[in-house]
């Protein structure tokens, strides 16, 4: 990759950041949505007979912080696949494909910029409401760097899936039904609400090995097991899925471009 390309990608990332910052109503809406979810689950976890688990450390406060991390990733990303869907259905993608910088990379850079802004906003908002509700932070300081790295990889994985879902419009017209299924799979197999460690076996182990766990469960899992082997294993698995899903995205993008070239947009 040339230096000019890197500069262009950085410019796209900056554009994404500025757009997210300018969308104040949308940002506040997301923050309110995030808080609402956390408040709902705070009420639900407090109404749950957690003593039935027989795990003394796992209380409502820890589960609150677990969800604060998983929901942060999901809400920060939003629904960017719709952007590609719109571009394909309206034909606007033709202008993007003609640029010297690959359309998918430019878009991904813009999404990353926007997500960085939203992750910071939601992260600060999550810590504020968590402090207010639970009276402390259940995230050990020692795992913070690993958690930040894991959250970054998780967000990248989700964004790559959105790229693929957006490109699916080239074949299916509206990828919304595919998105719903993918989203609910991330909710269930990613352990959005309930930590995968609490899933019955072998369902729990299968879910933990899936790419969905790398997208949602991984950064929050450090709240349940902060040992060095667990952190190394989780980050390793995330990197592996990043390579696999990155490759899949590249193949989908190539296939879509070939289809556009053959049949038009």
């Amino acid at each position, binding site marked *: 990759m040339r230096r000019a390309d890197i500069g262009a990608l950085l410019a796209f990332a900056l554009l994404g950041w500025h757009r997210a910052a300018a*969308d104040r*109503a*949308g940002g*506040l*809406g*997301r923050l*309110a*949505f995030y808080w*609402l*979810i956390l*408040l*709902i689950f705070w*009420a*639900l976890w*407090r*109404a*749950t*007979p*957690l003593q*039935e*688990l027989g795990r003394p450390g796992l209380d409502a406060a820890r589960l609150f912080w677990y969800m604060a991390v998983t929901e942060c990733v999901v809400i920060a990303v939003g629904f960017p696949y719709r952007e590609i869907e719109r571009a394909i259905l309206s034909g606007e993608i033709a202008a993007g494909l003609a640029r010297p910088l690959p359309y998918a990379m430019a878009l991904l850079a813009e999404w990353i910029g926007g997500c960085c802004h939203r992750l910071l906003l939601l992260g600060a908002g999550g810590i504020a409401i968590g402090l207010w509700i639970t009276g402390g932070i259940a995230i050990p300081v020692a795992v913070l760097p690993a958690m930040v790295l894991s959250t970054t990889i998780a967000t990248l994985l989700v964004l790559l899936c959105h790229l693929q879902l957006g490109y699916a419009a080239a074949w*299916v*017209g*509206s990828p*919304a*039904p*595919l998105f*719903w*299924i993918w*989203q*609910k*799979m991330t*909710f*269930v197999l990613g352990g*959005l*609400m*309930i930590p995968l460690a*609490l*899933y*019955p076996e072998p*369902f729990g182990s299968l879910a933990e090995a899936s790419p969905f766990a790398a997208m949602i469960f991984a950064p929050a899992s450090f709240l349940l097991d902060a040992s060095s082997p667990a952190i190394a294993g989780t980050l390793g698995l995330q990197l592996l899925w990043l390579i696999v899903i990155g490759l899949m995205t590249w193949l989908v993008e190539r296939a879509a471009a070939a289809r556009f070239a053959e049949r038009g947009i």
Partner: protein
Amino acid sequence: MNSLAYVAALLRVNLAACFARPAFAATSAAMMLGNNLIIFLLWVVYFADFSNLGGWGLRDMALLIGVVAWSFGLMVFLAGGLRDLANTIADGGLDIYLGRPRHPLPGLLLSRAIPSGLGDIASAFLFWFWLGGAGLGDLPLLLAVSTAAAVVLGATVTITQCLPFWLTGSAALSEEMFNMVMMVVFYPQHPYGFLVRLALFTVFPTAFIALLPMEAIRHHSLPEALGVLAAALGYGALAVYVFERGLRRYASGNRILELR
């Protein structure tokens, strides 16, 4: 043509357009059904670990998801235009409807049918009778409160989608508010405290979409069922009022309002 005939004509055209691509309509519906069943898995996992949630069990959750699926499905299948209302207002798209010799709201709401709603409607029956353990005798009550809940949901979404009349650049906020409503209704509301419940019965009326219908179904309670029906009438009228108030501002110029 009287009003009912007009609405019937709009529905007929929408349904014809919706089934113009039958394979897509069927796929959308099937995937939405699958989507609802997958989300139910979360509760299967939950109740594998815990005996109850504030007195509710897995069957109660199935009934709740059935009620919400019916409400949402009915809303988007019959009045799919609701989902675009904020953008239509912001883009100045109301002009087309204002030129018609009818009240613009029915035309706007019934401007399209979203076929995935059929999957929601179908899944409601699975949740009620297969997973929720309801009997056929419960069907009239289930349909009555769930349909009334659909009206409350539609009215709430209409009100939130009217935000661009007053607030510049708020189409995205309207979408987030829609997501919030859907988020709240899909989870049990009975564990909440007094203040939250008060909000859910007034400014954020999701209690009439999920909590009260569920109480009516669980206790076979006529007063609670009537409460949901009354809420449908009240919030329906409020939605029309809010839209008409907003429309007065729209008359001052549409794109200017959004771009200023």
